[in-house]
């Protein structure tokens, strides 16, 4: 056990901090502190240009192994990267679904074809991804997906039919990874495939859904004979569940590191506000702020303690790391409430008509999603109890 970062890590910190200082300027200045939770719909084009700027500097996909074009950063270095990124106020990453979910999954489970076709666009920041998991009938019970994939031998293509829902940033995305049934008679975990599907085609229809924030980050996605090439399936037909679960391991582990490092900025804002408006004198608010501060520190230590074993592997989390998502999502939810309570009655007043939220209002509303996506808190607790503690699995009712 040791606290100090290695010299190499400290050099790495200087390097990224210096790069950000020199490059987050000019046209990118306006993006500072933008594009976070609740603000993800803002400046999409500018933020994609920024993504490409990062790529030029070699600062996308820093956690990927070097052979795949990443920097091969350790967890410590990734923490450093995201800390400096947040400290500089650099904007929310439009490419995070590709970088954090699609890419690592393609690296762990894909073949040369997938890796050569898809990784370069993610690395370059030119191709954005979305996640086609949830369906109207398949939320927590993801294995209940009904979208079908049929192989058309004459055309040499897979044809997809069905509906996805809650698909974040589908309206910006170039590709979607889709779980669909390759065996139409199968149920549950069997008979699934993991597909890589281009969004810009006649068979794909994206319809935005308005969220409680008034904005639309997520969508419904309809597949009507949507196509992908014969090779655009990761893993064998029927074996998609293992791939889908590997991806969820990434989603519940390292992929949110970047977001968490932004939490410090959010807490700093709330502390500053509390000092300014006198809430900092309220003993209860003081307790809550101290608690938020303590738990945020611990979150960083958790990341280093729990996620170190995960890089480069198949996404599966070690036992201790199963608590990781539940802990940070609850922390973030509580922070949203703290923000409103520090503001007092003023928390109601919008930034503008018709429904323009302030940053903290947006935080308060948007954190409510953290305990839902990527496996709800209830599902996380099931997983912790079953996989972490060896308690019995939830009984399933017979199919109707």
């Amino acid at each position, binding site marked *: 056990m040791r606290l100090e970062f290695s010299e190499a890590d400290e050099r790495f910190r200087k390097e990224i901090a210096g790069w950000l200082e020199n490059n987050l300027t000019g046209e990118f200045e306006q993006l500072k502190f933008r594009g976070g939770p609740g603000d993800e719909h803002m400046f999409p084009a500018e933020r994609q240009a920024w993504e490409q700027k990062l790529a030029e500097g070699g600062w996308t996909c820093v956690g990927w192994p070097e052979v795949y074009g990443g920097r091969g950063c350790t967890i*410590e270095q990734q923490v450093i990267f995201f800390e400096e990124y947040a400290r500089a106020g650099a904007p929310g990453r439009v490419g995070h679904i590709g970088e954090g979910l699609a890419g690592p999954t393609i690296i762990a489970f894909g073949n040369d074809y997938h890796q050569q076709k898809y990784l370069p666009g993610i690395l370059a920041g030119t191709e954005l991804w979305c996640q086609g998991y949830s369906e109207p009938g398949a939320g927590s019970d993801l294995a209940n997906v009904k979208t079908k994939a049929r192989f058309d031998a004459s055309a040499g293509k897979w044809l997809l039919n069905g509906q996805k829902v809650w698909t974040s940033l589908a309206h910006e995305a170039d590709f979607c990874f889709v779980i669909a049934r390759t065996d139409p008679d199968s149920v549950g975990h069997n008979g699934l495939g993991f597909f890589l599907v281009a969004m810009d085609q006649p068979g794909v229809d994206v319809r935005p859904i308005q969220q409680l924030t008034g904005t639309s980050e997520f969508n419904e996605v309809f597949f009507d004979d949507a196509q992908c090439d014969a090779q655009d399936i990761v893993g064998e037909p029927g074996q998609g569940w293992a791939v889908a679960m590997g991806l969820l391991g990434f989603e519940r582990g390292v992929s949110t590191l970047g977001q968490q490092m932004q939490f410090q900025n959010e807490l700093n804002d709330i502390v500053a506000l509390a000092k300014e408006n006198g809430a900092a004198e309220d003993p209860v608010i003081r307790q809550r702020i101290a608690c938020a501060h303590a738990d945020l520190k611990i979150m960083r230590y958790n990341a280093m303690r729990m996620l170190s074993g995960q890089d480069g592997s198949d996404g599966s989390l070690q036992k201790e790391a199963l608590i990781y998502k*539940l802990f940070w999502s609850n922390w973030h939810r509580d922070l949203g409430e703290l923000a409103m309570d520090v503001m007092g009655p003023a928390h109601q007043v919008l930034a503008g008509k018709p429904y323009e939220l302030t940053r903290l209002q947006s935080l308060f509303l948007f954190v409510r999603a953290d305990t839902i996506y990527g496996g709800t808190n209830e599902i996380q607790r099931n997983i912790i109890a079953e996989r972490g503690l060896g308690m019995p699995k939830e009984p399933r009712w017979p199919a109707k």
Partner: protein
Amino acid sequence: MDFAFSDEQEMIREAAAAFLSETSTSDAIRRAMLSEPGYDRDLWRRIATELCWPAVHIDEHCGGMGLGYVELVALQEQMGRYLLCSPFFSTVCMAVNALLLAGNRQQQAQYLNGVVQGQTMTLAFGGTAAARRGGQWGPEIVELIAQPDGDGYRLTGTQHYVVDGASAETLIVAARLPNTAGEKGISIFLVPANTAGLTRETLATMDQTRRQARVHYDNVQVAAENLLGTAGEGWSALRTTLDLAAIALAAEQVGGAQQMLGMTVAYTLEREQFNRPIASFQAVKHRAADMMTRLEVARSGVYYAACIAQEALAAGPLAGELSEAASIAKSTASEAFLLNSADALQLHGGVGFTWEYDVHLYFKRAKAGEHLLGSPVWHRERLANLLLDHEQAATS
């Protein structure tokens, strides 16, 4: 940065767990807690002379093993897990730290060599103000008066809640010079327990696994050579000692929280109702999941604090973070242990309410430890003060 135990630390931990699972059994705990000193003297002798635990972070030139606070924390975690009744905490995690921080070479050589051989010590510092406003742990609670008398001092007053105060062979006593207040005037003394004028009574406490005492000082003479550090300037060393002790206590609490989770999972898997193990009920599973979450979160906080404690003892660059790390670790671990033991009690049903089952022993130890060295509320207020009451907030 790295939060994994080294192979050597892992070995220490495993050896401690193996030893304690054999020696600190339910029967042994119950015998110890009813015994006169509150612990098993033979077992303590073995721990000192065969396992050398009290030597863990004492320098080699004083007969110690010269390991660090991380190793100490690894041991403490296991002692907490097996609810060991022993003077280890008062001796090693309180008094030894005071000696390391404030003692001169001669004092260290004499007393630390004694500790290595199994002699017991404690730290006595709190007056009645300790219980004000639900528990105070700052300099204001040092109330015992040290009246200069020739080269030496005379101590007069009463100290409360002194851990193992009635059994310790030597007391390290914090007192204040007359007409001083707050951080000023605090002085630390070495006082052998058999000094004339010193009387001690064991308090009857709800938690019977760790003794507390009231200590009366009636013109107790202390020679100049038994002053630790400089007269009147003891607060800094005392505060650091209390922070180090809080971190060690937090480690013990992580061990306790772990055991509560382990016992609960085992019990709920075995106990059946409605023709199924109660562990299959989601209400039970989710409570267990929350127990594990609290435990692992507290563990991260404690391991980090252990590294900072080592920095503080070695005057490393991060030593300034000690109070913050101690408050984070202590508030988090105290709550984790208390909530886990309360959940364990609930999930054991009626048997959890019996004297026979061990859950209540942990529950009571958790409550006692929660208030020892600062409740979570007290520690959070200290953090809030760091964050909110100064111009430069301690962020990042």
